[in-house]
């Protein structure tokens, strides 16, 4: 019923507009064509300029109010670099945006039709074409130069002291694994994947022994973190907005991203004036109906807090050893054998 009324009202409005349009047309057809064109161009030119001014005010106002407020403070070292690039790009494109749009609306208004004026016959000017090919090229080269400089730094090899974490996406959750005491992740083998061991960790690999899984990503501030990213089923994307970290998680193709967090969760709560705030890991590649809710809390803590937390973590292998040995009792021996191949 409600919807019927809405539709009815809508149709009524359309009919009224149509009638107005018809009347205006009937009246205007009686007039001299040139005169009519001049009048229309006058009023439409004015309206066009006005709409430009309205949009300009809207854009200027919202940029002013939203730019600082919305942009989350970059919480990583390279996040600051990206922020600087964003600022530079904003200034350059902003200037071009203002100049070209102002000229567009101004010209459209200034040169609107007048009966007794003649347009200027000005078909080309090669010098000016070259000028406005070369200048944008130079400006863009500078922008891209600044960008690529940081690009290669961001994707350089991770420092050796980086904490090794593995994050694996699946519908619709993340599995987080730490390298453990040796800070090395145990090898995986897809053919070993089972419901109990969905990552397909090779328990025979000695390095897997001290690995542990975690419900949250906990990382110490100012220490590089090397995230090894993967997926079990479809493509996901490892996305930490505040840290400016984004990298696809692709089944079958491991990817990685390393970064250095610079603001702890506590500090960010103060910056945001929100005691509830937590960094969160989100998925940023459409992966199915639960894509919008693949959340994992990320805690950036002080070095001391990290050490304390780390000490509490229990090796996944040890915790589940009974289960694993049930499957294959010889496993522990194999590990020893693999570690000392010469004894065979």
């Amino acid at each position, binding site marked *: 019923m409600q919807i019927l009324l809405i539709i009815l009202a809508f149709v009524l409005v359309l009919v009224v507009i149509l009638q107005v349009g018809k009347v205006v047309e009937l009246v205007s057809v009686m007039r001299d064509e040139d005169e009519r064109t001049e009048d229309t161009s006058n009023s439409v030119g004015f309206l066009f300029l006005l709409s430009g001014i309205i949009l300009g005010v809207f854009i200027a106002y919202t940029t002013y109010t939203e730019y600082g407020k919305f942009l989350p403070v970059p919480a990583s070292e390279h996040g600051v670099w990206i922020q600087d690039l964003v600022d530079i790009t904003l200034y350059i494109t902003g200037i071009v945006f203002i100049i070209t749009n102002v000229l567009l609306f101004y010209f459209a208004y200034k040169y609107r039709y007048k009966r007794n004026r003649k347009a200027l016959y000005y078909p080309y000017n090669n010098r000016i074409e070259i000028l406005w090919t070369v200048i944008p090229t130079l400006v863009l080269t500078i922008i891209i130069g600044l960008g690529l400089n940081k690009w290669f730094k*961001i994707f350089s090899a991770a420092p050796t002291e980086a904490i090794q974490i593995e994050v694996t996406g699946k519908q619709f959750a993340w599995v987080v694994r730490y390298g453990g005491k040796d800070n090395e992740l145990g090898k995986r083998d897809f053919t070993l994947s089972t419901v109990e061991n969905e990552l397909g960790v090779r328990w025979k690999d000695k390095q897997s022994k001290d690995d542990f899984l975690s419900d949250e990503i906990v990382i110490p501030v100012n220490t590089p973190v090397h995230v090894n990213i993967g997926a079990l089923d479809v493509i996901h994307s490892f996305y930490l907005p505040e840290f400016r970290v984004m990298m696809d998680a692709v089944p079958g193709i491991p990817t990685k991203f390393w970064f250095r967090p610079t603001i702890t969760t506590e500090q960010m709560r103060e910056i945001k004036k929100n005691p509830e705030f937590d960094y969160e890991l989100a998925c940023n590649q459409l*992966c199915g109906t639960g894509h919008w809710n693949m959340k994992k809390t990320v805690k950036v803590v002080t070095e001391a807090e990290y050490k304390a937390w780390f000490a509490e973590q229990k090796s996944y292998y040890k915790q589940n050893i009974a289960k694993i040995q049930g499957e294959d009792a010889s496993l522990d021996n194999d590990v020893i054998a693999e570690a000392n191949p010469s004894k065979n």
Partner: protein
Amino acid sequence: MVTSATGEHALSMIGAGGHHKETFITKYIFSTDHKMIGKQFLFTGMAWAVIGGLFSVLFRVQLAWPDETFPFLEQIFSNWFDEGHMTPEAYYALVTMHGTIMVFFVLTASLSGTFANFLIPLQIGARDMASPIMNALSYWLFVLSSLIMLASIFLPTGMASAGWTIYPPLSILPQASSGSGMGMTLWLVSMVFFIASQLLAGINYISTVLNLRTKGMLMTRMPLTVWALFFTAVVGLLSFPVLFSAAVLLVFDKGLGTSFYLSDIFIGGKALGYSGGNAILFQHLFWFLGHPEVYIVILPAMGIVSEILSISSRKPVFGYKAMILSLLGIVVLSFLVWAHHMFVTGMNPFLGSVFALFTLLIAVPSSVKVFNWLTTIWRGNIKMTVAAVFSLGFVSMFISGGLTGIWLGNATVDIQLHDTYFVIGHFHLVMGVAAFFGMFAGIYHWFPKMFGRFMNETLGYIHFFITFIGGYLIFWPMHYLGMSGVPRRYYDFNEFHAFNEYHDMNLLISVSAIVVFAAQFIFVINFFYSMKKGRKSTELNPWKANTLEWTTPIEPGHGNWLGELPTVYRWPYDYSKFEEGPDFIPQTVPLTEADIESDKRLLH
């Protein structure tokens, strides 16, 4: 030669007085007249645009009012709602179909289909396309493709829902998404016919432009519309086959158990047998089409806008040669930038840097075009017709959206912005709204040639101003959302601390979207009302334009010109050339002493 044979064939039809019996069916349905086929593409495209627009309104309702219930929507769209809420399945299916419909069916098939068909023969002085039969076939393949896609809307397992980019493995595995069952299969089948349609059309446009130009119509005298449509066809012909092969491999993976794109997949507690495939390979193939595709969408609009800006400002297009060269530059570069859609897929950083470089270079020809448009209207005498304001609106949208491309093309900044609402804002301004504006401009401008009547101007202006301001209100705030990190393709933002603060902005966007969608019915009503009852066109050349289509009868029959084909003596932009006399000189007017004098003077 084939071409002259066609010409003679058409001539003989005219010779027969044009009144060999035409039934409703041969005239309106199985027509081979390029003008009718153009209109058919237009009508089909309009139907698709209404469906695609409706889908977007539905999912915007979900984003603006995620907690509210909508029983009346549930009554109409019972499949997609559950207890008054849109289901996530439906949400993802709707965004997928919205993208597919708008990009492929409306802005590719219908924009090119309408104007290439309608304008190419009329503006180069040909009686029809090189192969009218192939042309009709191209339309009917498009209809077939449309029907298949339409059928998928009614599937119990749902439409395709892996995004318009259909990335595997999601699009292949029905276990991963129910839309990847029959819905995806129909999507692929539909796309196969769609591509066939595009290729037939493209070959036809290219051969028509190359072979059927009338006497004197040198390539360098072609209107920019024809140049743009020609380049569009070239780009389509080179890129669509790649999408075709990508889709075929996808079909194999889906139906025959091959592993082109799949490897190491563990889903639903089971390890699947695929190995050795590469999911990223698909993205390379897809974007090898996908990026040129965005230019397939925008080039025709650029051509139309160049033409209309020149006619309405009574001034030649500024830098005709530069306009053609920049089109060519865009065509070439558009094949070298595809991986800028994949900066964060884990590709080699060096490769990424090369694509970033080319991507920023493609902004150069785009900016040259903008400067040339601005100079075209500078010191003009602009008749603010509806077509003219839509063209001016196009330029504004293209500037705003093009500049944000520079943000995204810088790979480093894209780490932050990829797949956020910033990208949505970027491409809707530069492609979505801008291409629609080009299309509207073209329709308002050539309506008298299509139907012998004018569209109502007042309605046209109302349509423009609502859409123009509304378009900015919808898509501009998306940049703020994107810069704040809000990801695209989220069904609900409330789960995350980082994304749940922007409800007001989402509300503004959704309300504007609903208003703008409703305003499009002003256009639809105007269109159909004017077709039947609009003011009659009584002059041959109502806009005082130079191009050849205005030398045909008001409503040209099959064959376009009654007598001989016109001969062309000059370029199409001699507006306001001389102080004395009319301010336009049609292409059919021979050069005079004064012309030669004036050209000489310009050289110095």
